[in-house]
């Protein structure tokens, strides 16, 4: 560590504090047993599974728990149905029968 980095370095404790606050706000809900995001994820997948055979390996779920909003991104590869025009983009829109 040289003198410059010593002066430039920002204190890390405020970052720790913020990360903890966001994380714990979510974890408290999870332990309480009503994690909306997890419920949504399960139910969305269940609905899709009702109509198409889901290959769990081909489902990509991205989750970002944030302070004002969390985002849940579910990317499902739906096998093309013979009656539908061929589409390769997957996604939720393609799940329509």
């Amino acid at each position, binding site marked *: 560590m040289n003198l410059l980095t010593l002066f430039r370095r920002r204190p*890390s*404790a*405020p970052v720790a*504090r913020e990360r*903890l*606050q966001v994380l*714990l706000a979510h*974890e*408290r809900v999870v332990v309480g047993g009503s994690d909306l995001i997890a419920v949504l994820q399960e139910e969305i997948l269940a609905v899709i599974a009702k109509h198409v055979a889901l290959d769990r390996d081909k489902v990509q779920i991205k989750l970002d728990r944030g302070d004002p909003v969390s985002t849940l991104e579910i990317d499902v590869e739906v096998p093309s149905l013979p009656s539908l025009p061929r589409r390769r983009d997957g996604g939720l829109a393609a799940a329509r029968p």
Partner: protein
Amino acid sequence: MAQVVVVTSGKGGVGKTTSTAALGAALAQGGENVVVVDFDVGLRNLDLVMGAERRVVFDLVNVVQGDAKLAQALIRDKRLENLSLLPASQTRDKDALTSEGVERIIGELREKFDWILCDSPAGIERGATLAMRHADQAVVVTNAEVSSVRDSDRIIGLLDSKTEKAEKGGRIDKHLLLTRYDAARASRGEMLKVEDVLEILSIPLLGIIPESQDVLRASNLGAPVTLASPGSVPARAYADAARRLKGEQIQLVMPAPESRGFLGKLFGRRAVA
């Protein structure tokens, strides 16, 4: 009426065992009749910190399984006659403890002692849940560090849901014991501050134990720090914490960073806080 206190944290290495020994000894030094119980089956260490490792004959598991009477397993401290230790087993695993057995022993201990301090193992599994199961109060030992704070939060959730008191609709008294605190690093913004931890966990503060050589020295010697060096800063902090646990109102002094002058910095000498 006897008080059962669980000393818990979730995370390992934050100072549960050290704190159990120091708080237990401090309570006994104040004239209370105290037993410290090691729930860390398989990895016992409270005996070592208390300096009783060579006197263990029977342990908690023996008593739970009926192989020994409680009185046979209790080890009376050589320095304080009103302080006893109930050691954990070193050879069994954590499944050797049964819920009914623990309940029976806690009941017997309530008859004999004013204070029953249960040293919880790390984690949130059987040993830890059994240690907190019958508690009236909890001391949540936390370091000012992200993983410790997160685990403490988790433990607080368990204390509010999985204890006997909570299941009966009551509330268990929870106290935060901030250990290994380094005021100088906190003031430089390198470590979470006391206020940060308090705001995040939002349980009342029992005490702040500074990171100290005296604590390590006490463990090396096999004596709780309140006995090994009673005048030291951590020993006084533990003694105050013990009195707060008894319900006394004692002013908490926030630890100030040690001020070191130019020469002090140069020679690494520490000002006596």
